[in-house]
């Protein structure tokens, strides 16, 4: 995972009980046990690096967005990819799977 959980000092007064860390939260995530976590804001790789074309042939790029163990498409809330890019990304991954550049299931041998 790309995010970093850094505990910071000064617990705020309202110790609202929340379940675990929130998945895609911005700075200042969930509170647990009076400690406050500071989460780096996730950004869309394609927006930041200005990658317009998400091509099915670029299996190295696509490989970053499928899970290592099972070959599943990693959800947006984990990778931080924005909605329009995730849509194109998932299309490209499916095309790449069809032509045996990426596995449907399991890791690529």
């Amino acid at each position, binding site marked *: 995972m790309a995010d970093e959980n850094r505990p910071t000092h000064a617990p705020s007064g309202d110790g609202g009980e929340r379940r675990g860390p929130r998945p895609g939260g911005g700075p200042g995530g969930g509170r647990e046990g009076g400690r406050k976590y500071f989460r780096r804001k996730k950004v869309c790789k394609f927006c930041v690096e200005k990658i*317009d*074309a998400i091509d099915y*042939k670029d299996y190295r790029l696509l490989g970053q967005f499928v899970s290592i163990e099972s070959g599943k498409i990693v959800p947006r809330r984990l990778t931080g990819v924005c909605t329009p890019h995730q849509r194109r990304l998932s299309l490209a991954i499916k095309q790449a799977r*069809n*032509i045996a550049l*990426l596995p449907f299931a399991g890791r690529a*041998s």
Partner: protein
Amino acid sequence: MTRAAAKNLEKQMNRTYELMFIVRPDMPEEEQDKLVSTLETAITSSGGALQKVERMGKRRLAYTVRKFHDGIYILLVVEGAGGLIHELERRLRVSEPVIKFLTVRIDEEQKRLDKVKKLRDAKRRAPATPAPAPSEAAGEAAPATA
């Protein structure tokens, strides 16, 4: 109206496709050339054009296809109508050494990319004044679509 219809028809004839296929790993190079040239004659005879042939070389497949673990990837960029693609796919299906193929239409995506690029260039040209940049970009994009 009729002009628009004619333009539409013309657009239909000039679609661009990427045709990627995998042949068995033990296929000799000259036979690959022969296969590509037969496809090319099929393309040109039905009014299309073969824009690019790219050999991507031998690569390990992500999963076994017809009991093969490796394959030689070949990519064609073809311009033509949909009927031509139908014919090419039929040929690939019946040709024995081809183990897998995929056709993707790329002209619309390319059009979108060009549009994005144009917008970005327009923005870069006027970075100091962000306010008129969108209007300028819109003004430039309009003649392209008309």
